[in-house]
């Protein structure tokens, strides 16, 4: 494959690059359109939550920074023994150890709720297992809880059969004795 020194690209190369660029442009438009759709339909939960959190922490900072709020007869702002007032919304910013985002300390609790709850499908799984265990324990005596547990297992008929079988045996035994 000889390439002349004068031409940077042979016509074939030029043409190939042109078509490659064509393909690439189409793919770029596809990616952009997909991201646009996700953003506009609100399908990206992380994006929504971040926007909301940014708004709320900006709000919180405004209420904290507003000097007309401190002092006076506002019950929230108590002066401590050193004469310092503490803002009702802690405004230190640090990074969440779960998702790594910078969070205002005062909004950390609701953030954790969402961060640990909706991050994966862990929330659905967690509620399912917790309600299942609640149902089990709320049935009263532990014996009925055990029987309900064995019923829920797939070896249903077998366990029932053996159980009743042994019961029958016992009753037979006690009848025969006297």
């Amino acid at each position, binding site marked *: 494959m000889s390439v002349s020194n004068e031409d940077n690209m042979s016509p074939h190369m030029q043409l*190939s690059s042109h*078509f*490659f660029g064509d393909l690439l442009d189409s*793919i770029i438009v596809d990616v*952009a359109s997909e991201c*646009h759709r996700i953003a506009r339909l609100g399908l*990206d939960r992380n994006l929504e939550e971040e926007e909301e959190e940014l708004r709320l922490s900006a709000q919180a900072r405004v209420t904290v920074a507003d000097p007309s709020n401190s002092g006076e007869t506002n019950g929230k702002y108590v002066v401590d023994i050193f004469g310092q007032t503490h803002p009702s919304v802690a405004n230190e910013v640090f990074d969440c150890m779960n998702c790594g985002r910078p969070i205002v300390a005062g909004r950390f609790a609701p953030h954790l709720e969402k961060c640990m709850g909706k991050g994966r499908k862990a929330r659905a799984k967690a509620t399912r297992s917790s309600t299942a265990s609640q149902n089990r324990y709320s049935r009263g005596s532990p014996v009925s809880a055990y029987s309900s547990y064995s019923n829920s297992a797939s070896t249903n008929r077998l366990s029932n059969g053996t159980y009743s079988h042994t019961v029958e045996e016992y009753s037979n035994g006690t009848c025969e004795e006297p």
Partner: protein
Amino acid sequence: MRTSVYRPPTPDDAVEEQEDQEKQPTLQEIINIKLIESGEKERLMELLRERLIECGWKDEMKALCRAFIKKKGSNNVTVDDLVHVITPKGRASIPDSVKADLLQRIRSFLVQAAV
């Protein structure tokens, strides 16, 4: 005959009908048509898409989009904005192996199409 979509004849077509042989299709256009008709363009695009997903290029572009959307607010963003955001970085960050592979395939198509 009533079609479901009414499309007025494009001026280009009307012109070409009158002045028949004045406008010859360019080489590029000819090849483009050959690519599309043979199905090769579709195949190449799918291959390129797959390669770009594999190497993480698509995720990088999506991250760029998300960062831009976060900054601008999701209600003010147009597809055009995003295209302009991605295009320079996108064109530059294609892995060389992917580019070389695709170029090779296009070139062999050109050869085989006897152009």
